[in-house]
């Protein structure tokens, strides 16, 4: 999309607010509508928009495919590992009360960690799906349109 000046400028302006909004949804997920799923999708949408307008090569420079594939696993690991951590403190699976000195704070940190795990996993999977689809060689060249 080298010839679409307006699209390129608007994309450059709009991608940082999209990612910022994704982080807002992520970290306010425990007290307001939102959370890991939505934040991950919004984050991925920002990067996919960047990839559509500026080309797959540039977005792969920011987030290489090997890193994305590691992040999908890392997200699931954080998600499940948060529940397992409490087992090491003689508490039940998913009992987050041990994560801080006050049980209520521990619950808070626990749900935040789970949400971060979900967010990382969802964002990475979305971007991985985009890479898988967009990396296929196009039948028509960009110049031939």
């Amino acid at each position, binding site marked *: 999309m080298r010839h679409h000046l307006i699209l390129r400028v608007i994309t450059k302006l709009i991608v940082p607010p999209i990612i910022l909004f994704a982080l807002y949804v992520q970290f306010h997920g425990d*007290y*307001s*509508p939102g959370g890991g*799923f939505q934040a991950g999708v919004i984050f991925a949408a920002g990067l996919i928009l960047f990839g559509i307008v500026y080309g797959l090569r540039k977005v792969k420079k920011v987030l290489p495919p090997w890193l994305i594939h590691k992040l999908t696993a890392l997200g699931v690991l954080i998600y499940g590992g948060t529940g397992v951590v409490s087992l090491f403190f003689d508490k039940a699976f998913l009992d987050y009360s041990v994560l801080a000195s006050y049980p209520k704070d521990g619950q808070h940190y626990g749900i935040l960690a789970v949400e971060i795990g979900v967010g990382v996993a*969802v964002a990475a999977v979305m971007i991985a*799906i985009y890479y*898988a*689809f967009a990396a*296929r060689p196009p039948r028509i060249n960009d110049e031939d349109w």
Partner: protein
Amino acid sequence: MMEFVLGHMNYWLFIILMMTGFYIVVARGNFVKKIVGLNIFQTSVFMFYISIGKVAGGTAPIYPIDLNVDPSVTYSNPLPHVLILTAIVVGVATTALGLALIIRIREAYDTIEEEDILEIEQAMQRKENAIEGSAMGGRA
């Protein structure tokens, strides 16, 4: 009678939306349109679940920030919302799988129309029968 119809409005709208999606899946030969129909079908189920979770006059089931729950406030049922959140994630995965299959079909057959693919398959079958038939003495 009228009260019954209006009182079950979400059921009627759900049936209309679901049958719209189902019709697209059955009637259209284009695979991308079939996926669109499947998504409309799926969305109708989401809408149905969320509408039966609604309590009249209830607000969003979110804890107040100071954790003091006012007993006079009614909340909507959050359980259908959670179920549908999971269903939406599954829906994204199935849509991605369907689109990936369509891309592979297009690479193999050079078309995404169901009828064209059936024609190509039949032509291949006929050619294969001719070869097999001559190997068995000209009877196919």
